[in-house]
């Protein structure tokens, strides 16, 4: 329970509901009867964090255990920060109202690089010393996991221990080890050395780094018998994996306020820009019976009237038809609607589409990612223009008149012609509308083109690629703008300077810890929010730390360079990534995992798509 004192200050903030706790299904335990207290921290505001499926899963999983109490902590918005500082209130967990320094574990989920400053912000507000070396006891252990843990180096000074890969098993193993070390009165160092022996655990303080004269890495040396490379953990059988039958139901509106079910992990496609597509290999599916039962239980226990089926690419789920027919057996009667967020519209019949909510509500969206077929081949995005056109035509004939298309600019090998190709593609969609005979009468078409700037990420075939500079990206944006000749096309683009800073941290090394610390001293927070991000300030930070951001973002790396994340092993062979990179530069595509195995290395887990029977290709 949060204290009466906090209640007073809540009267002075915009959205007090973010800071109260007390939601339906939140878990309250007696702190004297648990052994381990875990503060699950999401380095963003409540509405964003509470929408995150991974947090819901781990919260329930931990709290299933009688000896663990897991609580939630979010980053307070600046109005609350001001109140907390003024009244000297430390950052607290929503369940007990206790400050972070009362917890055995302080765990962060790393979803995007621009949230790193918020980690320091939250630690400081919670009275936790920022640097690993300043936290001497076996208590207040700071841990982190999630996709950005794939390159943990920029956070190495602050985080005691990283979870690599899927957390459901390894998290509990580490908690158990902590319990036993605690009862044996062992030191924090003893605990960390032992933890490093658990597969999927990376303890940065056990490694020393040397650099070459040109700033690149020279060597990475483990000590105390820590493994040379840390291998990710995966869950082999998703059907047997714990899944919550209940979510905390927020009392205020959040970003994704609905029941969610995971239908599979991984992605068969191998788009070369997509980090998630490589980190979560191999594809492992859940069976329709299991998903159906989980959805039904969740709706019953939360009262949600919407379920979304979550995955990286829903139409690749092999059992989608049986799943939807099971779900629709009860969902209509119970006024529950089903939505599939990441939809490749081409994969579905009209019949299925009519049962789904997404399409109805949010309009048609496609992500061709690049404007020309050549460039789509480079990035291995296997969508052809004729597929796109035929789906659009069907949709226009069915009464649609707005389409959104998503692209990236700054992709490897991209020329200004490829950029102009985005506008031309948009124009052909406009034309398709006017040649659709049953288009809505008297209505004009609206095509929205949206571009994000490409950020090269670790563990993708483009991990060596120099990101376009901000100037080049801006030029490309302007070129695209100038290539549009009709008012029926709207163009919007993401700010390229945030992508630049994202690129620095995505492929950064340990030396960036200094920059994070400096940024923290300057009060930089919420960099993922346009209102707070400042390129100028970041450039100042890098400058004052003697770091060159272009070294990380805009430099071509060689295949034989030692990369800051080379000691982390996601099961994808580096030789495969090199091969994929070369194919990209030759405009060659690679078949998806269901068409043909390309031998990426993920088959070592002996599960999932790597062992499915493939239809022989003709």
């Amino acid at each position, binding site marked *: 329970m949060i204290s009466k004192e906090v209640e007073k200050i*809540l009267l002075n903030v915009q959205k007090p509901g973010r800071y*109260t*706790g*007390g939601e*339906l299904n939140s878990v309250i335990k007696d702190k004297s009867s648990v052994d381990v207290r875990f503060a699950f921290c999401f380095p963003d505001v409540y509405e964003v964090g509470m929408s995150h499926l991974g947090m819901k899963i781990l919260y329930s999983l931990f709290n299933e255990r009688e000896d663990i109490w897991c609580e939630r902590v979010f980053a307070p918005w600046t109005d609350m920060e001001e109140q907390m500082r003024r009244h000297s209130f430390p950052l607290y967990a929503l369940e007990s109202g206790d400050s972070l320094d009362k917890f055995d574990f302080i765990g962060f989920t790393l979803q995007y690089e621009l949230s790193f400053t918020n980690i320091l912000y939250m630690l400081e507000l919670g009275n936790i010393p920022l640097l690993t070396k300043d936290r001497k006891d076996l208590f207040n252990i700071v841990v982190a996991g999630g996709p950005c843990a794939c390159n943990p180096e920029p956070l190495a000074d602050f985080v005691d221990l990283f979870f690599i890969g899927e957390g459901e098993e390894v998290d509990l193993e580490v908690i158990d080890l902590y319990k036993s070390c605690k009862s044996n009165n062992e030191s924090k160092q003893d605990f960390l050395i032992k933890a490093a022996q658990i597969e999927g655990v990376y303890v940065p303080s056990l490694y020393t780094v040397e650099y070459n004269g040109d700033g690149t890495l020279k060597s990475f040396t483990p000590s105390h018998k820590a493994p040379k490379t840390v291998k990710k953990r995966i869950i082999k059988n998703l059907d047997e994996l714990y899944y919550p039958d209940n979510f905390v139901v927020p*009392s*205020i509106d959040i970003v994704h*306020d609905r029941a969610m079910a995971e239908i599979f992990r991984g992605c068969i496609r191998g788009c070369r820009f997509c980090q998630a597509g490589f980190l979560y290999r191999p594809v492992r599916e859940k069976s329709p019976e299991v998903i159906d039962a989980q959805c039904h239980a969740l709706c019953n226990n939360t*009262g949600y009237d919407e379920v979304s089926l979550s995955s990286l690419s829903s139409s690749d789920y092999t059992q989608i038809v049986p799943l939807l027919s099971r779900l629709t057996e009860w969902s209509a009667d119970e*006024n529950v609607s089903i939505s599939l967020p990441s939809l490749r519209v081409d994969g579905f019949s009209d019949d299925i589409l009519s049962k789904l909510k997404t399409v109805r509500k949010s309009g048609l969206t496609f992500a061709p990612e690049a404007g020309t077929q050549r460039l789509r081949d480079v990035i291995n995005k296997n969508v052809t223009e004729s597929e796109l056109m035929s789906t659009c035509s069907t949709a226009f004939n069915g009464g649609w008149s707005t389409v959104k298309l998503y692209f990236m600019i700054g992709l490897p090998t991209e020329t200004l012609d490829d950029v102009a190709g985005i506008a031309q593609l948009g124009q052909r969609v406009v034309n398709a509308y006017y040649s659709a005979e049953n288009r809505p009468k008297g209505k004009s078409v609206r095509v929205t083109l949206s571009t994000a700037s490409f950020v090269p990420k670790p563990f993708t075939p483009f991990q060596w690629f120099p990101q376009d500079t901000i100037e080049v990206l801006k030029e490309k944006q302007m070129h695209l703008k100038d290539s549009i000749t009709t008012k029926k096309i709207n163009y919007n683009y993401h700010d390229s300077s945030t992508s630049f800073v994202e690129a620095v941290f995505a492929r950064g090394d340990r030396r960036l810890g200094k920059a994070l610390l400096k940024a923290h001293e300057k009060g930089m927070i919420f960099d993922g929010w346009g209102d707070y991000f400042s390129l100028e300030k970041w450039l100042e930070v890098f400058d004052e730390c003697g770091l060159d951001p272009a070294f990380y973002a805009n430099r071509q790396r060689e295949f034989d360079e030692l990369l800051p994340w080379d000691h982390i092993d996601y099961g994808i062979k580096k030789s495969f990534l090199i091969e994929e990179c070369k194919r990209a530069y030759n405009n060659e595509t690679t078949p998806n995992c269901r068409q043909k195995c390309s031998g990426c290395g993920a088959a070592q887990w002996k599960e999932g798509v790597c062992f499915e029977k493939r239809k022989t290709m003709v």
Partner: protein
Amino acid sequence: MKSVRLWFKKEGLARFISHLDLNKVMTLAINRSKIPIWHTEGFNPHPFITFALPLSLGFCGECETMDIRLTDDDFDISLIPERLNGSLPEGIRVYRAAAPKMKPAQISKARYEMKIGADGKSGGEICAEIGSLLNSAEVITRKKTKKGLKDIDLKPYIKEHDLKQDGEFAVLNMTLPAGSVENINPILYLNALKEKTGGEYFYICTRRKIKNENGDDFE
């Protein structure tokens, strides 16, 4: 189809749930409780719920009401409070279900209790400050209207009130116009106080009664 009026309390931390969010909280609780509630028709059917009188963010309420319609006329409405209470967040409790007698449009006033505190001041001192405010010839503050901010004199509205000390708090009880015709938010008195003294205060404001023109409880 029958209409049912539900009375509920909203207190403690639940006072930080806004009116809009309250609608959502109630909808989910009703979905979960499987009460045979009537859904709106159309593209996106949802349970039909109306609230008689919105409560400001940050206020507690002791006799809040919402109306629903049941599709099953034989459903025992006395079961509703318990069924909903298992599905509501901390601080919201439904305590009564009955057929509505009045229309929400008949609401004309509400009784509020406002506990006011300030760091470094005793209840007695705050009482004195409030007393002097209410004794002034006029109590001017600004009120948000559809046409923007407007000066308003609160003096004429504060006919029925009493003021007492309760430890570190001053407690001001007052009856004010409420409803769709005229609505005076008690927070305006606190604003006037802040303007007068330049001090900072915190408060817990509770709506204790909702009444019609004759002073009968809203039933």
